[in-house]
């Protein structure tokens, strides 16, 4: 099984140095594009490869790039940003790539920058990733020294500066337009689209924001071609994917597998199945802002289309397992607490709706729920949907809630009827202030 992204990552071992990385073929793609390919050709190739963004939305990467104004008339400088803010609860895949093989990311960023003719690039890294910050900085220095970054890269005339920016903690910073505001030294409120960042992004200039995993795929696509990349996937979706499993499973972890492995395979083969004494009750397939899937979905392949057909989203591909001993109301309350706290406060439904939802869930969990609470939750799931709020945070928050209300409604109702949490021997989960 091919594992292009993680082939050089050995847990517990230092990432490859530049020399070592070059020895295993590192930076070949940079040499190749600079010598043999025009930016448009790179864009075309990536479009052909059917690479879809791994940041959660799954938008075609090549297509996204194609909206960047090209040619001498285009506004300068253009920017490329690697979104390494990874703050989606339950998600820990970019960390693996950042800590394990930072040169691969840098190489991918050079490819992407070249494709859109960006001359400045940023790694927007979340604060908590201290080790990653260390490794990326080190690798960046090496790349500068070896002439992969800076002026006139490998004598090609192509220039690229790269900076590391560590965030100061806000889930919103992962949303690409909010991220740009954060990079500009502003409050990380999202921006309205249009204008898309491709046209007016960082400092008002054309900008592409790509997820770390997306970018790490690029060197391999350049080196081995679109067809190779497409055949990696088991289903219609191309490439491999970093999948993760957390929760009460025997061996939680993160694995690179062909796009389209089934949930069951992941859960049972890789994660080793449920821990002793725990039964599977449901899962969030791709982070906190995806809909619950349940027993009946275990054989669904983990790819964009199949998960969507099952009523959820592939999201980040890192699943969270809910076991039978965890109260679904408490579980969802924890999620909603997170989203309410991390709402930027810009738009009304999210700012006011999520805390309300959180309060209701807490009340239900404490045994103080009322039947009309479910009605209120229902209208929130209806009206905090995509387009109704300013960005995708609140719609994301509603996904686990709406599906929980669908699959575990009796559990909610039982809480309300019995005026007590059937799971709780003691008191309900307390929110952090």
């Amino acid at each position: 099984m091919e594992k292009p992204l993680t082939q050089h990552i050995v847990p517990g071992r230092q990432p490859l140095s530049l020399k070592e990385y070059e020895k295993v073929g590192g930076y070949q793609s940079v040499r190749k594009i600079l010598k043999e390919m025009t930016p448009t050709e790179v864009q075309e190739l990536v479009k052909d490869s059917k690479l879809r963004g791994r940041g959660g939305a799954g938008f075609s990467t090549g297509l996204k790039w194609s909206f960047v104004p090209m040619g001498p008339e285009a506004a300068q400088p253009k920017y490329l940003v690697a979104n390494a803010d990874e703050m989606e609860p339950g998600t820990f895949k970019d960390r693996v790539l950042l800590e394990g093989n930072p040169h691969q990311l840098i190489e991918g960023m050079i490819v992407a920058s070249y494709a859109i003719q960006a001359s400045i690039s940023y790694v927007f890294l979340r604060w908590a990733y201290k080790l990653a910050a260390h490794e990326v900085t080190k690798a960046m220095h090496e790349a500068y020294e070896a002439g992969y970054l800076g002026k006139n890269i490998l004598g090609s005339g192509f220039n690229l500066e790269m900076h590391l920016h560590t965030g100061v903690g806000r889930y919103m910073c992962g949303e690409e337009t909010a991220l740009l505001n954060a990079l500009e030294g502003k409050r990380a409120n999202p921006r309205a689209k249009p204008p898309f960042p491709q046209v007016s992004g960082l400092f008002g200039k054309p900008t592409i924001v790509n997820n770390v995993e997306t970018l790490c795929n690029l060197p391999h696509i350049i080196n081995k071609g679109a067809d190779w990349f497409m055949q990696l996937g088991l289903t219609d979706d191309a490439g491999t994917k970093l999948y993760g499993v957390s929760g009460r499973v025997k061996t939680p972890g993160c694995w690179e597998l062909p796009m389209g492995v089934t949930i069951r395979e992941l859960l049972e083969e890789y994660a080793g199945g449920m821990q002793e004494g725990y039964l599977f009750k449901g899962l969030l397939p791709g982070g906190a802002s995806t809909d619950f899937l349940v027993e009946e979905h275990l054989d669904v392949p983990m790819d964009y289309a199949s998960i969507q057909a099952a009523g959820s989203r592939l999201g980040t591909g890192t699943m969270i397992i809910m076991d039978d001993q965890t109260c679904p109301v408490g579980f969802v309350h924890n999620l909603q607490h997170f989203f309410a706290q991390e709402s930027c406060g810009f738009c009304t439904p999210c700012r006011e709706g999520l805390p309300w939802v959180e309060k209701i869930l807490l009340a239900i969990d404490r045994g103080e729920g009322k039947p009309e609470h479910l009605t209120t939750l229902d209208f929130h799931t209806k009206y905090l949907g995509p387009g109704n709020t300013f960005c995708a945070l609140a719609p994301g928050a509603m996904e686990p809630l709406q599906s929980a209300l669908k699959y575990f409604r009796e559990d909610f109702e039982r809480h309300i009827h019995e005026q007590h949490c059937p799971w709780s021997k003691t008191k309900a989960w307390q929110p952090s202030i």
Partner: protein
Amino acid sequence: MLSIEEKQKIEHEISLVPSPKNACIEALKIVQHSHGWISDDSLKDVADFVGMSTAELDSVATFYNLIFRRPVGRHVILLCDSISCYVMGYDGIRDHLYTALNIQYGQTTADGRYTLLPNCCLGTCDRAPALMIDNDLYRDLTVEQLDEILSKYT
């Protein structure tokens, strides 16, 4: 007053962006790094240095979770309270910290050693529950390990 070193570092950040204002978050990080938090005086110093009003800078500072506008202890414990850690029973860790340190979230121990803060997902869900103290990440936590961990910081 900003130290010469702080000023130099901020100057460097300013040199990378179109306008000094754009470097304000970096500047806050630099000052917080040396002082542990951003006092009203520091805020004013940074604001003056990057050409913003205090209100404008505080607007940015108060938006973010990890810019501390109140004094913190010598060490900050960031305890993950997000979903995987929740499933894996992070609340036991929290309760133990509450009793061991005799503080609650948002508080600092009387000896100024620890401040305890809840934190969103630390991105290490496969090894939940987890917490960070300063730059150190602790995972696969059990209540039993806590006292030893806490004893490492002075």
